[in-house]
């Protein structure tokens, strides 16, 4: 299962599961990242971490290590648009792309 960490800017994703536990998990969920919510990856910070996403209509930044606990799938909408990359690319491979 792909996690948000491996996503690239521009990806539109749906959250399938939040793994992890404790404070990090609850903080993430309190901010509105819950199962079924839609996420758009906006950008990665200039130094490669953290990343910026849009969730529930606002901008949120989170570190890749925390993004690793968010399992996602592509939304049908983005599959149509970006059919060239049906699978999320390998972790860390996205840093060259903008």
């Amino acid at each position: 299962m792909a996690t948000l960490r491996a996503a690239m800017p521009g990806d539109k994703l749906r959250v399938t599961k939040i793994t992890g536990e404790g404070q990090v998990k609850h903080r993430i969920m309190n901010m509105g990242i819950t199962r079924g919510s839609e996420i758009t990856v906006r950008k990665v910070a200039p130094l490669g971490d953290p990343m910026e996403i849009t969730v529930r209509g606002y901008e949120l930044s989170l570190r890749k290590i925390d993004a690793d606990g968010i399992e996602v799938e592509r939304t049908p909408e983005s599959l149509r648009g970006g059919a060239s990359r049906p699978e999320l690319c390998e972790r860390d491979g996205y840093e060259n792309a903008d």
Partner: protein
Amino acid sequence: MKMRIKIALAGNPNSGKTTLFNALTGLNQFVGNWPGVTVEKKEGRFREDENIIIMDLPGIYSLSPYTPEEVVSRDYLLDEKPDVIINIVDGTNLERNLHLTTQLAELGIPLVVAVNMMDVVKKKEDKIDSARLEKELGCRVVEISALKGTGVMEAARLAASLAGGEKHIPRHSFSGSVEHALAHIEEAALHSLPEGKQRFLAVKLFERDEKIIARLGLPDAALKHIENDIRLCEEELDDDAESIITAERYAYIESIIEGCRTIKNKGKLSFSDKIDMVVTNRFLALPIFAAVMFIVYFVSITSVGAVATDWANDGIFGDGWHFLGIGSAAYSEAIDAFEAGEISDEPDPAGYGAWVPGVPVLLGDALEAINCAEWLQGLILDGIIAGVGAVLGFVPQMLILFAFLAFLEGCGYMARIAFIMDRIFRRFGLSGKSFIPILIGTGCGVPGIMASRTIENDRDRKITIMTTTFIPCSAKLPIIALISGALFGGAWWVAPSAYFVGIAAIICSGVMLKKTRLFSGDVAPFVMELPAYHMPTAVYILRSMWERGMSFIKKAGTIILLATIAVWFTSSFGWGDGDFGMVDMSDSVLAKVGSGIAWIFTPLGWGDWKSAVAAITGLIAKENVVGTFGILYGFSEVAEDGAEIWANLSASISPLAAYSFLVFNLLCAPCFAAMGAIKREMNNTRWFRIAIGYQCGFAYLVALCVYQIGTLAAGGGFGPGSAAAILTVAGFLYSLFRPAKKTTMRNSATVPNI
């Protein structure tokens, strides 16, 4: 007498809560801290009716027990029982804001939802159907714009009219199995409590909230019974209890939001998005950041700030100043001429233009005129006035910096700074926002420490406060000039090496501290909202500047004043000619103390009493170190870099020992003003002691290593000092590279021992 009404203002960070609070209370505000934590506490009286008290709770995303802000807000709502809550929600960000609303609704306190930023919502041509929202939430909903002031007073009047009235009953419900478990919990543990309170507590017990469990003090049997219900529910829904609740709250919001809100330009880039495309762009972000930092530093420290500080320190609390600069040019020409030997009498600044004498001069003349006793004059001028000057002298510069910080926070760029710099700073246990305190610290540590206020995370903020003053501030430059001139022939590398030592000290301390037990429990996730950009109002900036400035004066002022008086007293009194009275510094109590403790510094290479005394007077202000050496070597006045005493100093101390002295003074406890700022920002005596203790201990050990290992390398014999230094180095290396202890999450969702 009319009944007092308490209104609590609750909402997410960045929802406009402070703006609303200011609009409602005007100038009737009391700003302080919640006991024991560095969370700001603001209370005020309603402008229209002084029997209405408004409490501005800290910005929170949830009523969970994870951050000090959440705990403080929650305890207030449960214990102080406000008569009504105004929940301010950001209309441009409704879904996430309503998450807190669903929790506030369960408290059994009348609730008014104030949908803020309606001006922005309308500008974007979105629509919010507040009548529908009112029906769905089951509580009153009003539309406001705190910034424009529309609907604000109406919201407060409405809230006041609901005070003490009907208990609010939440309309939302959870899924069947959760409701089943909640009913069981209420039945098993809460049926004796007032009905209004049961819902909130039942949800918290379901979430296994340890603070609530402890607060209720339930018998083990009841807890066991509850645990059983929770387990069943968790198994059924395949998630932990707290996540179930959060997910269901959002599911509920999703189910009602479509009917209440229409967004016109979905997916279109907003103005804020466009700014962000430039400002956090991967190529432009760092240059823009550097430019912004340069401007902040240049204005608040170098140009305007320096003028303001010099005016406060050398003008008001010094000899005096030229009113509006009239006459300064003529005076400096005269000084140049005097120094060039063209005129024989030193010019008096008072003879040029509009000269206003400083407070010490005026007061000194007055005391002289009334034949005041010498010791009393000393107390007033060198003790009290110098102390007050030490407190107030930094204020003008600080206010300028605070205005910048308020602007950066208010417009939304501060959050971007954390975003851009996080990757570098988090390795050292610091926040991306720590960059600002450290940068400002190169000018002056006092506003630097105060700038740490912008860091939300408690651990990051504490480590920043503890390490900011390691960077050489401008007052430490004369010490560097003294040591460099006296012992190293003014070598070019001394000053850069001081900055290098400072930066290395910050990095190493950050790494070591974050691994200690003190900080291991506080690992907080960096999940941060990037609020939309908007132009803050002038009132907001001035107010924030004023509040922070006052809080420094009030909270830091006392300690600075007392400490300055204490050092003045010990340095001017002593047993001369058999009697206790005013004496020269060489005979003073301070000199005795210096001699008494000089042995402590022998392993560092500078165990003579003069250096020890200079280090102590350096606590008033680091510039004093040079002046003290001057006095102790018998000069009444020395230049800023102490050129007169270079020969004396180089005769009495080795270069290595001098460098060790320099390192110690750079790293040890800063001046009293900075210590006052540390105390203010820690807001906790224990943490204040830890910070000062750490700084002094660290400075001692680093200076020890410098001297002892330097001596060893230069061919000196191996002694107990060398052994201690080697052990210290080993200790440092261990603290730096040991694996971080597996941190146990506080309040994690693990099952409590029942």
